[in-house]
């Protein structure tokens, strides 16, 4: 309690700094009443916790200043994420400081929502619960998201106290097929742990494991580890899916089978492996498998899947040859009516080459086994419809949005006598509820989760709740139980005590300091069940007639908005989709040929009609989908939830049928055909894309593995220079460097540089959001995004290479940020020295000196300077971007820029200066790795490395020497401080 008290006072004391408000004569300064030793104004405090933005549960450290959370960073000691965080994790802060949060309890009456006190609300619920419990068993329902650990157990106990077991752990993406397939093939109803790091060949059937699938951050780290090019080796990655997204962008080869046939293709590959005698099986098992596989002839599979025989055989050969390899099934491949069969087929494929137990590992416990299936949700809806539920409490999940409209959730939910939302936001579900109890966000709560076998990961508040009226759900439930006269939680009075239950204080402190208790879980050996053959592949059915213009709809989770829970966070809305580069909008991805046939172009509004519903969205012509498929992102189309989400875009789930269920009881997101009809109306796409082709300018480069082994690299335009020209350029550079020997430049300064390994970078854009958080970047909104006025200091450029007609084209992605040129074009042209060269090799940008001639930006060949067109930083201005309490998140170490000022990346110069000052005061030398810019810190692929290039031993100077190293637009003699390492692509035979 003491600490909370300090934080409260500190919170007040911090306002002056955090809000960066102008000095006023009347300004007051509030000291702490009691000061705490661990809280020094101006020095950040880190709280180890767990990210709850998705079920993956990565370890995080929340950076606080003056007792305010200002940044989320990864927890290096944590086995999930290993110190890396994705864009959604970074944006947790915007959930915390969202001005649209529920700040006090509300009650729904005929006149709409009315404020109500906590006590009254609790009383009402307690009475209702009492009545419900009295009238029979299972008349109370408690719905949460995927939950685990102490609180999860408590929820069950709490429910039991009211004679009910109607507990739902509802997730939109619950991976039922994986669990069911594992049961059918290995007798273990669990989601296995995948080891991408040691795989030498990754074969993904639709799994978007770099975006949302299971544990994207950890998988990105592992995948980058395996797929990066080092000492002549790299894993090959083949993506099998009808739509090419972020994950498949990293693929060396893209195979696009007919939607729904992924399972058959997996079986075909497995059969091919067996036929080629590469199967890692013995005895009766081998015979059984051989017999089973005999059913799948290469020709038959090729005809059904639309993938050529030789491709199937080659992939099989490579897959079997590279031990250990890894095949995963997910995403669209496990979202049609044959999902379970597909997952089972992939299990078989892994088993055949002996990956199970090596790269596919089962444990005694799996975080997913308790998570409810879609079928459970529909059963619950049926129960409510039948009036079998009197009280329903929904906590931190939004079924009203993520369930297909056809499932009839809303109607059934209204039939419940008392519906209660324990919600931090007024989302679609909360809108339906009779009572809304303001919940805290994960950064303000106590909890403990088990994101992976053997991992107990703690969640602790990084600060006192932003809004006094809010209460953690568990606390509320405890109060309700107490009011109803039930004793639950074994005498625990608060969520904190629930979490700490049964732990000695020292153990708890240790866990809270390190983020949790991490133990290696023993691998559970599994064998193929004898009667695996009962899992027979059936071609999945699709709603709607197959004829004519009908196209199969793929509704995929948006990498930024996930299942829609990110939709009210400005940072995530403004994060361009990796494939289409569109922000703030919904769209339909249509293949160029299909677009030609339908006579639609980018921005044409079309009505997408399925047997179950229709939506209207603009077309984006995209070569990354099969011609017989259209794709739409899930996450937009909210009718509530907040200013950024409400009435924005459309929700493709409205097009799905409620009964689209596969054998595992999962919702089949890819289960319906749609037709596109032009409305004749147009809309502008808020895309950041300029030209999708780099026209041989060598900005994002890649080399084939074969070439890389021979030491070849892809040459850029500078290769066309003659020797004489090269000599001239070198001479010019030398003459320009003379300036570096006068005045402050003459001293032995460090030279800060960056290397970005494109063979690691997956284009996930975590760096972009991290930069927003660290550098107080304003969210500019849709209208300004349409006008290319986004302020992201680092952006992901996405270029197509090769003929996009077929599937044999590559994607080149490159993070483009200020290159901190040694011969910077921006510097000499600034009339007032606002842009200048710092002694330690940065292109300094002095905001308070800038007068806004914009000459620097005009002269910057990389176009990485961003201008404050509006007054984003001034309270009260119509364009003020940090509406209270979002401004609490502002980093006090970074100036909030005003209108008319140019701004740009400076390698997080504030972090450099703070580290230098710290070292100076402690009288020690800076070591390599002491300073990490926000982008490098969060990069899940560890592609970005920062350091002192004058120190030959630093990692960055060593990486610079790599043969793959190049400078973007190097022929301009700008001498960039950012060195890119060419991507390496395994082409053809691996």
């Amino acid at each position: 309690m003491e600490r909370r008290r300090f934080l409260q006072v500190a919170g007040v004391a911090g306002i002056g700094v955090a809000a960066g408000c102008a000095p006023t004569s009347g300004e007051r300064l509030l000291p702490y009443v009691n000061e705490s030793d661990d809280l020094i104004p101006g020095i950040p405090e880190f709280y180890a916790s767990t990210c709850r933005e998705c079920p993956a549960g990565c370890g995080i450290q929340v950076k606080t200043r003056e007792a305010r959370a200002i940044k989320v960073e990864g927890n290096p000691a944590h086995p999930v994420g290993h110190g890396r965080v994705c864009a959604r994790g970074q944006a947790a802060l915007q959930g915390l400081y969202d001005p649209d949060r529920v700040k006090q309890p509300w009650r729904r009456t005929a006149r709409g929502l009315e404020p109500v006190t906590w006590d009254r609300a609790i009383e009402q619920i307690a009475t209702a619960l009492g009545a419900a419990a009295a009238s029979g068993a299972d008349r109370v329902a408690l719905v949460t998201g995927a939950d685990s650990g102490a609180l999860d157990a408590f929820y069950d106990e709490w429910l039991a106290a009211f004679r009910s077991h109607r507990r739902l752990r509802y997730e939109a993406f619950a991976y039922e097929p994986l669990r069911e397939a594992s049961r059918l093939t290995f007798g273990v109803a669990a989601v296995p742990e995948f080891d991408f790091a040691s795989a030498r060949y990754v074969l993904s059937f639709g799994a978007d494991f770099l975006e949302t699938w299971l544990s994207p951050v950890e998988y990105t780290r592992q995948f980058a580890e395996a797929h990066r090019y080092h000492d002549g080796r790299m894993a090959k990655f083949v993506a099998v899916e009808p739509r090419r997204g972020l994950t498949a962008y990293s693929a060396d080869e893209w195979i696009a089978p007919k939607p729904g046939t992924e399972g058959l293709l997996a079986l075909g590959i497995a059969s091919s492996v067996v036929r080629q005698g590469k199967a890692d099986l013995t005895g009766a098992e081998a015979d059984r498998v051989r017999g089973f596989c005999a059913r799948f002839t290469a020709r038959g599979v090729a005809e059904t899947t639309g993938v050529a025989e030789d491709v199937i055989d080659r992939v099989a050969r490579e897959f079997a040859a590279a031990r250990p390899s890894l095949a995963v099934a997910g995403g669209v491949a496990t979202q049609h009516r044959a999902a379970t069969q597909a997952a089972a087929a992939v299990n078989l494929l892994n088993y055949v080459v002996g990956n199970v137990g090596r790269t596919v590992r089962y444990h005694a416990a799996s975080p997913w086994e308790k998570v409810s299936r879609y079928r459970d949700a529909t059963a619950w809806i049926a129960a409510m419809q039948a009036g079998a539920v009197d009280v329903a409490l929904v906590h931190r999940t939004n079924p009203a949005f993520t369930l297909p409209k056809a499932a009839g959730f809303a109607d059934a939910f209204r039939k419940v006598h008392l519906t209660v939302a324990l919600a931090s936001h007024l989302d679609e579900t909360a809108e339906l509820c009779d009572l809304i109890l303001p919940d805290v966000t994960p950064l303000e709560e106590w909890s403990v989760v088990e994101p992976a076998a053997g991992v107990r990961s703690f969640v602790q508040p990084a600060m006192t709740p932003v809004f006094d009226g809010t209460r953690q759900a568990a606390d509320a439930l405890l109060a309700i139980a107490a009011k109803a006269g039930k004793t639950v939680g074994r005498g625990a009075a608060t969520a904190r005590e629930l979490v700490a239950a049964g732990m000695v204080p020292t153990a708890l402190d240790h866990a809270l300091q390190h983020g949790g208790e991490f133990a290696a879980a023993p691998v559970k050996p599994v064998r193929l069940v004898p009667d695996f053959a009962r899992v027979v592949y059936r071609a999945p059915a699709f709603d709607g007639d197959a004829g004519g213009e009908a196209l199969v709809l793929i509704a995929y989770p948006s990498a930024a908005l996930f299942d829609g829970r990110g939709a009210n966070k400005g940072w995530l809305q403004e994060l361009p989709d990796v494939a289409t580069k569109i922000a703030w909008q919904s769209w339909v991805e249509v293949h160029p040929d299909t677009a030609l046939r339908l006579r639609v172009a980018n921005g044409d509004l079309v009505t997408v009609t399925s047997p179950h519903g229709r939506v209207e969205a603009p077309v984006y012509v995209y070569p990354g989908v099969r011609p017989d498929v259209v794709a739409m992102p899930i996450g937009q189309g909210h009718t509530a939830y907040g200013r950024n989400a409400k009435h924005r875009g459309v929700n493709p789930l409205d097009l799905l049928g409620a009964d689209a269920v596969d054998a595992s009881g999962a919702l089949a997101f890819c289960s319906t055909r749609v037709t596109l009809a032009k409305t004749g109306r147009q809309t502008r796409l808020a895309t950041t894309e300029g030209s999708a082709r780099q026209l041989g300018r060598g900005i994002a480069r890649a080399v084939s593995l074969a070439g890389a082994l021979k030491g070849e690299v892809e040459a850029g335009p500078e290769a066309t220079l003659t020797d004489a020209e090269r000599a001239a350029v070198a001479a010019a550079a030398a003459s320009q460097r003379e300036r570096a020997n006068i005045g402050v430049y003459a001293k032995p300064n460090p030279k800060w540089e960056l290397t970005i390994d494109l063979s690691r970078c997956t284009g996930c854009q975590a760096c972009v959001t991290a930069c927003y958080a660290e550098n107080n970047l304003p969210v500019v909104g849709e209208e300004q995004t349409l006008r290319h006025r986004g302020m992201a200091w680092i952006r992901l450029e996405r270029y197509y290479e090769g003929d996009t007609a077929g599937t044999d084209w590559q994607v080149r992605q490159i993070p483009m940020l200020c290159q901190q040129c040694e011969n910077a074009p921006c510097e000499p042209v600034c009339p007032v020295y606002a842009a200048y060269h710092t002694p330690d090799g940065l292109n300094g940008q002095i905001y308070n000196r800038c007068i806004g001639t914009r000459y620097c930006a005009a002269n910057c060949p990389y176009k990485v300077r961003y201008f404050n067109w509006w007054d984003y930083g001034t309270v009260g201005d119509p364009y003020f971007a940090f509406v209270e309490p979002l401004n609490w998140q502002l980093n006090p170490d970074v100036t909030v820029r005003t209108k008319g000022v140019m701004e740009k990346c400076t390698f997080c110069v504030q972090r450099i200066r703070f580290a230098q000052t710290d070292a100076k005061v402690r009288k020690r030398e800076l070591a390599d790795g002491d300073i990490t810019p926000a982008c490098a810190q969060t990069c899940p692929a560890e592609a970005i490395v920062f350091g002192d290039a004058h120190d030959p031993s630093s990692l960055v100077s060593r990486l610079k020497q790599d043969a793959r190293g190049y400078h973007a637009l190097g022929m301009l003699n700008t001498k960039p401080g950012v060195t890119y390492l060419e991507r390496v692509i395994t082409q053809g035979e691996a």
Partner: protein
Amino acid sequence: MATLATPIPPAAPLHAEAPPSYADTTRDIIATLRPPGRKYYVGMAFVLVGLAFGAFCWGYQLRYGLGVTGYQPPIFWGTYITTFVFWVGIAHSGTLISAILYLFRSGWRTAVYRTAEAMTVFAVMTAGLFPILHLGRAWYAYWVFPYPNFRGVWSNFRSPLVWDVFAISTYLTVSATFLLMGLIPDVAAVRDRSLGWRQRLYSMVSFGWKGSDREWHHFGRMYLYLAGFATPLVLSVHSVVSWDFAMAIVPGWHATIFAPYFVAGAIFSGCGMVITILVPLRKAFHLERYVQVRHFESLAKVILLTASIVAYAYATEYFIAWYSGNPFERSSFYNRAFGQYWWATWIMLTCNAFIPQLLWFKKIRTSIPTLFVISIFINIGMWFERFVIIVTGLSHEYEPWQWSYYVPRWPELGILVGSFCWFSMWFLLFIKFFPAVAISEIKESLPPPVQAGGRR
């Protein structure tokens, strides 16, 4: 009679019809200073309204930020810089005609140089506004001046923008001095015919001019020196302005041809503007006897010459873009001609390269209305020349991902209109306060009065 230190030999039959006498000249020209009529006030009112609108637009922009403009990264420069260069260009013919042609002793300048000079001064006054209008934080514009300050921060002399500051201010000072200097004898003449505050004003501006030989002698010398001093500016100022672009590495900007190319363009546009102004002026004040067709023809010839130079420069640009083999230059210029900004480019080429070629025909050269129309085309074309260079250059740069498209929005256009009104306002004031045609020099070009036969 009073004579210049280096009298200009009167060209053979100067005037087709009966030449006006000295008295006529003085009377006719001073007549232009009579109290203005309704038309004048209507015009002035129109101009002031336009100016007010421009001012409003700027205030709006100051309040909300440059977001109100159409700027769309990477096009960070647009209408303002375009218009800035346009006005600087306009400013050039003045000095050319008054100074250089003076040194070259070309007689036809006498009728037009006063107008041209005034135009120069006002055009520079207009151009000078735009670098400030264009700033993100205009209230800190003074930071570009190297003034001593306690903070010890200085302006960056490596920046072409700072060069501009000096170039423009120098040019304004010199051309203004030159104008006022040349006005002295005429103002004195006016002074002798005016009363009240006007007389006081004119006495001040004419510095008590008496018209003695000594004064004429000094006047002539001084005029010569100033002409000599102003001449290099004609070349230097616009060269400096062109370096705003040539010193940058933007494809389509970074070219050695820019200085001469811009100077030629400046004179071209300047002469165009002189015609645009002179034609209505001549009509309004019935100066046909003094500003004659042959004067216009001479101007037309200058235009023809410079137009050809400009056209040649265009050709060179494209040739070099192709010949250099530089992929960025090639792409940039291809985009100019056939990309999203093709319309701007072709307006430019038509107005600047093709239409002026009509002036090869004497018929057209000597037809005032046609000349007037052509001069309008030239003004439009030269504005678009700068637009094409600046906007298409920036829209299609090194980084393909950052290619974009820009069209001005109403505040920019409002300020553009305002700038023309601002210019016109000064000009309208000028013609009512000072003789728009140089009395003394006209007289020099007239045959001296014949004593025998008495006064006409």
